[in-house]
């Protein structure tokens, strides 16, 4: 618990305390939000089970274990494989609400990170301590792209486990043993490994948004949201207007896709999977001759979140160009942090 014990390097120790400071201030967004979302989802699952039972009881339907357990035993290897893939997709899909919550938490956290303490003047307290502006800003980057997503991933894993446990218990109560069907450790570990692997990849991809939001947060005197969101929107409209008038070499769609899209939406976990390189994976899955549209969708999700397409993003120039732009904006935010101590509320 005590960062002093972990390291004796003073600047690393300071950094540890700075990240901890961010956690203290934003416990609600970083910890409570994912836990509450997970709790709500579990509640929905429980409610569904109970509703199913109550409805069945009312209509005199007797759910016996016969069907499902037989199904599991009689399933062909291909069918079992498809079921497993569907389950994998379900497990990943289950994390989506937590990831959506995480995105909003990160967005507003970054937007306020270098602004809120100027507004309430507490920046002067932190500036009265031997903390460099570089470590201050980097601690906020780390809190946003590593700490918050790490907590969210833990919440996702807890949610998946809770779902599997509840489903197993429910099935067992009805005399069905679904354990061999649901509990496939290799699949579970692969999903968890993907979730963890997504953290650094998301972080790299998110850098343009992180940099842009921190930059706005560091220099605006008031209303960071207006500058961070409405200003780029306005610029986009102006660019579109000029295009109409003069037909520049670059279409305004380029602006929306590569500037606006990257500075506003790169925080979305896994959004990079849709970037140009990952399109290959999508094409592959689309070219398959699946008749069942539902299965095609799960195939699509699994193909999208395959190790190939995940690691493939590392070869995409868009990732690295965006990362460089993001780092440059973070450097600019550090520069503004040095002298801006005031803001209006």
């Amino acid at each position, binding site marked *: 618990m005590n*960062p*002093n014990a972990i390291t004796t390097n003073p600047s690393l120790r*300071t950094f540890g*305390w700075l990240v901890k400071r961010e956690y203290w201030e934003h416990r609600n967004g970083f910890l409570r939000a994912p836990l509450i979302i997970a709790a709500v989802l579990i509640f929905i699952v429980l409610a569904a089970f109970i509703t199913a039972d109550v409805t069945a009881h009312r209509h005199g339907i007797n759910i016996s274990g016969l069907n499902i357990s037989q199904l599991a035993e009689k399933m062909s290897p291909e069918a079992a494989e498809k079921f497993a893939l569907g389950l994998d997709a379900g497990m990943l899909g289950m994390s989506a609400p937590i990831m959506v919550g995480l995105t909003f938490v990160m967005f507003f956290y970054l937007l306020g990170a270098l602004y809120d303490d100027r507004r309430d003047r507490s920046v002067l307290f932190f*500036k*009265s301590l*031997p903390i460099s502006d570089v470590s201050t800003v980097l601690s906020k980057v780390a809190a946003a792209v590593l700490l918050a997503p790490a907590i969210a991933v833990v919440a996702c894993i807890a949610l998946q486990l809770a779902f599997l446990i509840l489903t197993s218990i429910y099935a067992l109560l009805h005399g069905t043993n679904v354990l061999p069907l649901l509990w496939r450790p290799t699949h579970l570990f692969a999903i968890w490994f993907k979730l963890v692997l997504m953290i650094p990849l998301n972080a790299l991809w998110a850098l343009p948004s992180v940099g842009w939001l921190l930059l706005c947060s560091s220099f605006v005197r008031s209303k960071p949201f207006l500058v961070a969101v409405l200003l780029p929107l306005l610029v986009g409209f102006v660019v579109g207007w000029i295009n109409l008038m003069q037909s520049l070499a670059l279409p305004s769609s380029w602006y929306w896709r590569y500037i606006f899209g990257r500075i506003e939406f790169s925080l979305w976990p896994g959004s990079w999977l849709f970037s140009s390189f990952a399109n290959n994976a999508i094409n592959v899955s689309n070219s398959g001759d699946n008749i069942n549209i539902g299965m095609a969708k799960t195939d699509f999700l699994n193909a999208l979140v395959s190790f190939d397409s995940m690691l493939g993003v590392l070869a995409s120039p868009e990732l690295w160009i965006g990362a460089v732009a993001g780092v440059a904006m973070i450097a600019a935010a550090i520069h503004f942090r040095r002298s801006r101590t005031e803001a209006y509320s």
Partner: protein
Amino acid sequence: MDANPSSADEPSSANELIVRARGLTKRYATTIALDHVDLDIPAGRIVGLIGPNGAGKTTALKAILGLAEFEGELSVLGRNPRTQRTDLMQQVCFIADVAVLPRWLRVGDAVDFVEGIHPRFSREKCEAFLARTKIKPTQRVRELSKGMVVQLHLALVMAIDAKLLVLDEPTLGLDILYRKEFYQSLLNDYFDENKTIIVTTHQVEEVEHILTDLIFIKDGKLVLNASMDQVGERYSEVMVGPDKFDAARALRPLSERQVFGKSIFLFDGVDQAQLAQLGELHKPSIADLFVATMKGTYA
């Protein structure tokens, strides 16, 4: 900072300058907040930086603390406050204003945090100071009264063994009990000959007995920069009866005010024996001196 240990941890000697400024200037778009200020503050002093609103006090402090850009030469503890700020903050503390502690912070976390960050912080001292207050470790800053927030901030700052403490209106908006206690703690439990304190305040009467040096600042210029002893020698107040008004005015007083049919004249640098012939001699209060010096500031 390990590269040059000799400069970092030397004990301050009497003639070491804590702050040295030459031609310190700060311009804003339309005004000049500091106008070629020269300033030397030696170690072991308590300096009052007094001036009307907008005179440049806060700008000067911000420059000293490395919080703002400036023109001219400025060294604090031998360092450049702009480029060596992090290093400097090991030896410099400040209370910028009342209630700048973050409202979400827990008292216990605040102590842990400063202990983790600041190499010269003493947890024992801090806890001893806090034990004298009603502040509990589990409380958040937002649950504390304004006076208690200042007590907490002071406890955190006094537990840091720094060479320079800068206070910018530290007691603004506090009741008199907290204000008295604030300066008393500072003087009794913190200040010694190795420490230097720079304080700005509008409540001049409350600091005048603890100051060793007095600086008046007006329109970005230092209009007075003297030790309290020098101030006592230079300035005298005489209560003069109506019959001697003309004689008193002939000595070009700084100011004149009426009390109970007599006039009180304030003189700068006039021989005290000469003044004694005019009437009863007093040491002027800093507040009266300030009012006389700042005449016409807002006109």
